[in-house]
C-alpha cells in the first residue's frame, strides 16, 4: 500500500514537472473556428511551440464577439484566433486590439491584412457566401437552378429560400453588406425587398440555411461555401451555386487583445498564424487562405469562387453596421405573420 | 395582592407586565407572585392572555414591558435557553423520529452526564410516568395520553425549577383527561416543582391548582384558592365563568340590602350606593328548598332570613342524574328565571313537582351583588 502510494506520488510529481517544463505559458484564446478543427490547429501550433498551451474558448461568432465586448474593461482573452474580420474591426474601434506586425506578414495577400501599420489584425482564410440548392426538392417543385442573386427574386422561388438573419448571423450580415456594395445602397435595398418576398424565414445561424437545404426542409439556402461543401460531403443532395454578380465574403482573422499578460507568447501565436504552414492547415477546410499560392482545391468546393469574391470594404461594413441593421430590422425584422 | 409586597420574595415574581402585538394589547399590567412549590392554573376563556403570559414567563414571547423574576434572578429579557423551566405543550411536541427513550434523554445530552447515567435517569423517568416498557417505541405508536406523559417526563428530566404546562390535557378525550389530571397533580406533589398550567377548563383548574389565576381580556380578574374563586368570586366575570350562577338584575338598597324587583333581601354586605344598578347572583346549589313548615319557629326546616324567602312557581324540572335542576319563576324576576339544584332527597321529601308552588330561600351568606355592566 505504502509502496503504491509512493509510486503514485512520484508519478504525479513527474507529471507536474513535465507539464511545467513543456507548458510555461497558457494562453486563453477566443475563437469561432469550427469545434472539430480546434484540436488540429492547437496540435499543429504546438509542434513548433510546445511551451505554449492554448486554452480555447469557442463559440459562435456572435457570442464570442458579445463576450469580448462585454469583457471590454476586463479582458479575459489573450488572443483572438479565428474570428470574423468585421467583429475584429468592432473590437479595434473600441481600442481593444494590440497592433502587432507578425514576422512574415509581408508574405500574405495584402487583402488579408489590416491597413493600419502596424496592423491590428491579420487574416487567415476567407469565408465566402454561396447558395445551397437541394436538387431533389427543386426537381419535385419544378424549380429552375438559380445562377445569380437576381434569379432568387423570381416568383417561382416564393417560400423556397432561406437565409440567415443579419442581426444575429455574421454570414447574414456579409450577404447584406455585399448586396449593398454590389448593387449600391438604393438598389441593394430594392433587391432585398424583392428577395424578402421569397424568403421562407430568416435563421439565427449562418450554417443553418445550407443544412436545411441539404435536408430538404427549404430547397434553397443562402449560406457559405464551406458549409455547403461539408453538407454535400455528408450526403446532402445539394448543388453549391456561386451567384454571377459576385459574392460577399468575410475572413477569419487573428489579433492580440490589448492588455494581455502574456504578450510574448501571444506574439508567437500570431506569428504562427501567418506562416505558410498555418495556411496549409486552414486549407483543409477553407479554399481561400491568406498565404498566396498554397491553396489546394477543397472537395465539393464550387469552382470560380475565388474570382467571384467582391472587393469587400470591411470598413464600410463595420462603420455602417448599426445603421444597416437598423434599416434591415425596420424593413424585414417583424415578419410577424409568417403565412 | 397589595399587602404581598411585605412578604419574602416568592419563587416567581411578575411585575407590571404588558404585552402588545402591534396595536392589540394582550396583557395589561399583570403582577403576580408564585410561591415555591405551588401549582398555579391560569384559567380563562380563549384569547384572555393566559398562554401569552405563560410564554412570557418562558421567554418564548417576550413581554413588551415589565419584569419577571425567577428564584431571585431577573430573567425579564433572557432567551428561553437561559431560563430554568420545563415545558409541555398541548400538541406534546414529541420528536417523531426519535424513540421514546431518546425523546426523554434529549435534554440530558451534552450536560456532562455519562451514557449510563442518562440511561438510568430515562428509565426512572419512564417508571415515574408509568410507562417503563415503552422506551423503544416511536411516539406515533403510543396513545395520546401516553405521549403526553412522555412529554412530561422529557420536561422534568433535567429537574427544572419551574414546570410550564400549556393546555396539556385539551387534546385528550374526557376519560383520559380526568385520569391524567390526578397523575400530573400527584407527580407535581411528589417532585415539589413549582408548576404553572394554562387551561380553559374550570374543572381542571379547580381540581388541580393550589391557586387559580382567573384572567379575562388581558387582565387578572382574581387570584385565589379553588374554593376562594368558587365561593367568593370578586367579579361578575369570575362568578359567571366558574361554576353556574343565577344573575338577577337588582338595585342596591340600604346597608346589606338589595332590591330585586321590589323584594328587598338581605346579604352579607355590599359597597354600592343606594339605587345603584347591580346584579344579584346566587349559585343554583345554594338555593335552599323549604317545605310547609318553613315558617314555623324552631323547626328543622326553619328559614334563616325571612326577607330572603320567596314563594315561587316550579315551571320546569330537569333530571340531571344526581340532582334536579328546577326552573323557578317569581314576579320579582320579571321574565327571568331562577335556577335551583335540589337533591333527589329534597325533591322527594318536599314533593317538588312541575307546576307546583314552593318556598325557597336565597341564603344571606350566599347571595352576592356585583356591579351591573351597562347594556
Amino acid at each position, binding site marked *: 500500500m505504502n509502496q503504491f502510494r509512493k509510486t503514485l506520488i512520484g508519478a504525479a510529481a513527474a507529471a507536474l514537472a513535465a507539464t511545467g517544463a513543456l507548458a510555461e505559458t497558457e494562453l486563453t484564446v477566443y475563437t469561432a473556428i469550427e469545434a472539430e478543427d480546434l484540436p488540429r490547429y492547437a496540435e499543429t501550433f504546438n509542434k513548433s511551440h510546445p511551451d505554449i498551451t492554448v486554452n480555447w474558448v469557442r463559440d459562435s461568432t456572435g457570442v464570442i464577439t458579445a463576450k469580448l*465586448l462585454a469583457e471590454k474593461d476586463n479582458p479575459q482573452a489573450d488572443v483572438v484566433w479565428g474570428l470574423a474580420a468585421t467583429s475584429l474591426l468592432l473590437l479595434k474601434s473600441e481600442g481593444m486590439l494590440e497592433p502587432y506586425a507578425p514576422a512574415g506578414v509581408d508574405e500574405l495577400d495584402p487583402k488579408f491584412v489590416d491597413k493600419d501599420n502596424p496592423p491590428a489584425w491579420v487574416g487567415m482564410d476567407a469565408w465566402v457566401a454561396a447558395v445551397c440548392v437541394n436538387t431533389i426538392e427543386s426537381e419535385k417543385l419544378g424549380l429552375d437552378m438559380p445562377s445569380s442573386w437576381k434569379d432568387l427574386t423570381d416568383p417561382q422561388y416564393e417560400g423556397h429560400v432561406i437565409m440567415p438573419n443579419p442581426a444575429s448571423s455574421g454570414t447574414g450580415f456579409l450577404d447584406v453588406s455585399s448586396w449593398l456594395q454590389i448593387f449600391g445602397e438604393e438598389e441593394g435595398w430594392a433587391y432585398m425587398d424583392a428577395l424578402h418576398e421569397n424568403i421562407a424565414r430568416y435563421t*439565427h445561424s449562418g450554417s443553418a440555411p445550407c443544412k436545411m437545404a441539404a435536408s430538404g426542409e427549404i430547397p434553397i439556402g443562402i449560406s457559405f461555401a464551406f458549409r455547403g461543401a461539408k453538407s454535400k460531403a455528408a450526403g446532402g443532395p445539394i448543388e453549391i451555386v456561386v451567384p454571377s454578380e459576385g459574392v460577399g465574403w468575410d475572413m477569419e482573422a487573428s489579433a492580440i487583445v490589448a492588455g494581455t499578460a502574456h504578450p510574448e507568447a501571444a506574439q508567437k501565436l500570431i506569428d504562427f498564424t501567418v506562416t505558410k504552414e498555418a495556411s496549409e492547415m486552414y486549407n483543409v477546410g477553407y479554399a481561400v487562405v491568406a498565404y498566396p499560392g498554397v491553396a489546394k482545391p477543397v472537395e465539393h468546393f464550387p469552382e470560380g469562387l475565388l474570382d467571384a469574391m467582391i472587393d469587400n470594404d470591411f470598413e464600410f461594413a463595420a462603420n*455602417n453596421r448599426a445603421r444597416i441593421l437598423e434599416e434591415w430590422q425596420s424593413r424585414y425584422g417583424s415578419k410577424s405573420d409568417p403565412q | 395582592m397589595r399587602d404581598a409586597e411585605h412578604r419574602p420574595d416568592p419563587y416567581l415574581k411578575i411585575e407590571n407586565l404588558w404585552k402588545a402585538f402591534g396595536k392589540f394589547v394582550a396583557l395589561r399590567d399583570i403582577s403576580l407572585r408564585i410561591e415555591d412549590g405551588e401549582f398555579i392554573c391560569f384559567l380563562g376563556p380563549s384569547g384572555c392572555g393566559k398562554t401569552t403570559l405563560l410564554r412570557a414567563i418562558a421567554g418564548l414571547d417576550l413581554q413588551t414591558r415589565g419584569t419577571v423574576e425567577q428564584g431571585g434572578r431577573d430573567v425579564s429579557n433572557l432567551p428561553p435557553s437561559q431560563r430554568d423551566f420545563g415545558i409541555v405543550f398541548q400538541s406534546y411536541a414529541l420528536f417523531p423520529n*426519535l424513540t421514546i427513550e431518546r425523546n426523554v434523554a434529549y435534554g440530558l445530552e451534552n450536560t456532562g452526564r455519562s451514557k449510563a447515567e442518562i440511561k438510568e435517569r430515562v428509565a426512572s423517568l419512564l417508571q415515574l410516568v408509568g410507562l417503563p416498557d415503552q422506551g423503544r417505541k416511536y411516539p406515533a405508536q403510543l396513545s395520546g395520553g401516553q405521549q403526553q406523559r412522555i412529554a412530561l417526563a422529557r420536561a422534568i428530566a433535567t429537574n427544572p425549577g419551574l414546570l410550564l404546562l400549556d393546555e396539556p390535557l385539551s387534546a385528550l378525550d374526557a376519560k383520559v383527561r380526568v385520569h391524567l389530571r390526578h397523575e400530573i397533580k400527584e407527580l407535581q406533589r411528589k417532585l415539589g416543582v413549582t408548576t404553572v398550567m394554562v387551561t380553559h377548563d374550570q374543572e381542571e383548574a379547580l381540581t388541580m391548582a393550589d391557586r387559580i389565576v382567573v384572567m379575562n381580556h388581558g387582565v387578572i380578574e382574581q387570584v385565589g384558592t379553588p374554593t376562594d374563586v368558587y365561593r367568593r368570586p370578586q367579579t361578575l366575570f369570575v362568578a359567571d365563568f366558574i361554576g353556574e350562577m343565577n344573575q338577577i338584575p337588582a338595585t342596591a338598597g340600604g346597608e346589606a340590602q338589595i332590591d330585586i324587583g321590589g323584594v328587598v333581601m338581605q346579604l352579607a354586605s355590599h359597597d354600592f350606593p343606594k339605587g345603584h344598578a347591580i346584579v344579584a347572583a346566587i349559585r343554583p346549589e345554594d338555593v335552599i328548598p323549604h317545605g310547609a313548615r318553613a315558617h314555623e319557629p324552631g323547626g328543622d326546616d326553619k328559614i334563616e332570613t325571612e326577607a330572603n324567602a320567596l314563594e315561587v312557581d316550579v315551571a320546569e324540572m330537569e333530571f340531571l342524574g344526581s340532582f334536579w335542576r328546577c326552573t323557578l319563576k317569581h314576579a320579582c324576576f320579571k321574565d327571568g328565571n331562577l335556577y335551583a339544584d335540589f337533591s333527589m332527597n329534597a325533591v322527594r321529601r318536599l314533593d317538588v313537582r312541575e307546576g307546583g308552588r314552593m318556598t325557597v330561600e336565597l341564603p344571606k351568606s350566599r347571595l352576592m351583588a356585583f356591579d351591573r355592566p351597562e347594556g
Partner: protein
Amino acid sequence: MSDAAYTIPEGKNIKGKLSRDDLIMRASMIVIGLYLLVSMVLPLYAMLSKSVSTFRFDLAAFEVQVSDESGANFSEPVTFETLNERLGVVEGLDFIAGSDGRLGVTQFFPDFSFRSPVMYRIRSNQEDGRFLVGSTLHTGTEWLELDSNTFRRVQLRPEQSYGLGNFKTYFSTPALSDSIKNSVMIAVISTIVTVSLAFWFAYALNRSCMRFKGVFRLIAMAPILVPSLLPGIALVYLFGNQGFLKELLMGAEIYGPIGIVIGSVFFTFPHAFIIISTALAISDARLYEASVSLKASAWRTFWTVTVPGARYGLVSAAFVVFNLVITDFGLPKVIGGQFNVLAVDIYKQVIGQQNFEMGAVVSVVLVLPALLAFALDRYVQSKQVALLSARSVPYEPTPNRRTDSIFFVYSCLVAVFIVGILAVCQFAALVKFWPYDLSFSLNNYRFNRMDGGGWAAYFNSIKLGLLTAVFGTAVVFFGAYLVEKSNGFRTGRTIFQMFAMMPMAIPGMVLGLAYIFFFNNPENPFNFIYGTMTILVVCTVTHFYTVSHLTATTALQQMDREFESVSASLKQPTLKLFSRVTVPVCLPAILDISIYLFVNAMTTVSAVVFLYSHDTALASVAVLNMDDAGDIAPAAAMGMMIFYTNAGARILHLIASRGIIGRTQAWRHR
C-alpha cells in the same frame, strides 16, 4: 378599570437578550440573505441601470477646422453642434445610439468632396471624447489633421449617459415593440389551450373510473424531464416541409405562432396538470351528494360544484402557464421562425447585435408581465389556503361505462401527443440523414463532431445538476428553516422571504443577462466566478429558488411549531434539533427539492445560455446550439439524452426515497 389602564405606559420596549442560537441563526440568515442579494438583487439592479444607460452623440464635444483650397489657412474651430444647428442633420432620437453607434462627419458639410484639396482638423474638446478614423480609435484633445479623402472616414462615437432614451427607442421601433403583443398573444392562447386540456385530463384521472390512471399520470409528467425546446424539434419533423404530418396543417406554417403554441402546450402541460389535479383531488364529496339529492343534472353539478371547487386551481394553473410561456426562450428560438417574442429578442439583441443596453430594456419589458402574473398567482394561492383547510370528505368516483370510455379515449389522445413528440425526437436522433437516408445509425450521437460542446457538455450538465441539487438543497432548506423557525428579527425575515419569492418572477433570460452585467464587471469582487461552473450553479440555484423554498416552507410548517421551544427549554442547541429532528423528518421534502433542482438544471437553457463558457458547455445549451446550426438530428439526440438522464434520476430518486424513508421514517408507521 380606567381607560389609562388600557394603554401601554410610556417607556422602552423590552429588548430580549439573544442566545447563542439566536445569534447563529441570525448570522446564517444574513449569510443566505446576502447570497440572494448577490445572486439576484444586485445583478438585477445592474441590469436595470444598464437599461437606462444610453449612448448619445455629444456634438458639442467635437470641434473641426476647415482649410481653404490651398490646404493651409484653417478656419476658426467650430463645434459640430454649431454645424448641426445650421443644418439640422441630427434630430431627436437620432442622438440616441447603441454602444456601437457611429455618426459620419461628412453629412455636416453639404459641399464636401473627397477629391478636394481642402484639409480638415478634428479633435474632441474632452479627454474622453472618442472618434474613429476608419476603425482606429482616437481619444484625447489633440488636433488631428486629415485630408478630405481620409476625413470622410471619420466617425463620431457616442458618449455614455443615463436616461430613458433606450425605452423611447424601443417603443418607437415596431420591429421591437411588436414582440410584446406577440408574446402576450402566444402566452394567452397557450394558457387557454393547456389549461383546458389539462383540466379534462386531470378530471379524467380524478373523477372517472377509467383504467391505466397510473400510466397516464406518468406520461403527463414526462415533459418536465426535457428542455422546453425539444418539442420544437419534434414539430419540425412532424409538420416541417418534410414532415410526416405536414398536410394536417393545411398549408399553414409550423414555424411561428402555431409551432410555439403546440410546443408550449407540451412543455407546460405537466405544470397545469399537477395544479389542477391537486385542486380536483380536494373537492368535497358532500357537495356532490347534496347536488345529487337536489336532483341536479350532471352538467349542472359540473358547473355549480366541480368548476367552482377547482377555480383557484384553474386560475393558479393559468398564471403559471402564462408565466412559463411568456418567459420561455428555447421553444420560440427553435420553432418561432420570424415570429418575434420578447425572450428571443433579448437573445438577439445581446448575442446577435451585442446591444447589451437594448437587451436590458427588453428584459425590463419582459419582467413586467411575468411579475404581474406571479403576483396574481400568489394572491390567488393565498386565498386557496382557506379552502384547503376546510374539512371535507374525499370524493370517490363511481364507474360509468360511457363516460369512463370517453375519458379513456381522451386521455389516450393526450398521451399519444406527449409520447408521440418524444418518440419523434428519438426517431429523428437515430435516422441517418432525414429524409433521404432513413437507415438507422448512431452518427447523430457523435456530439464531439458538432458544435455545442460535445459529450463534455452532457457530462457538464450532469455535474451542474448534481452540484445544484446538493448545494441548492442545502442553501434553500436551511434558509427556509431559518426564516420559518428563528425568533424575532421580523424585518430580517420579511426581507429574506421577499428575496426568496423574487426569483420566480424573474425570467431566466433576464437573470442570465443580469449576471453578465454584474459578475463580468472587473470591479466586482465576485468577478472570478465568471465563466466557471460556480456561476452556473449559483445562477441555477437562484433561478429555481422560489419553488424549492416553498416546498421546504410547506414541509417545515407541518412540523410542530413548539419543537424549537422544547429544545430551548431543554437547553439544547437549535442546530442539534435541526440535524437530529428537522432534517430527518423533512427528508421526503428535501429529496423532492433536490430532484426538482437536478431536473431543472439539466433542462434549463434560458439563464445559462449567457453564462456558459467553453469548459462549461451544457447539454441543454448544446441542443439549442446544434439546432441553431442546423444540426437538428443531433440536437434531438442530445435532448433525448437529457430525457433519459432525468428519467433515470427520477427513478433513482424514487428508489432512494423509498429506501431512506423506509429506514429513517419508520416512525411514520404505527
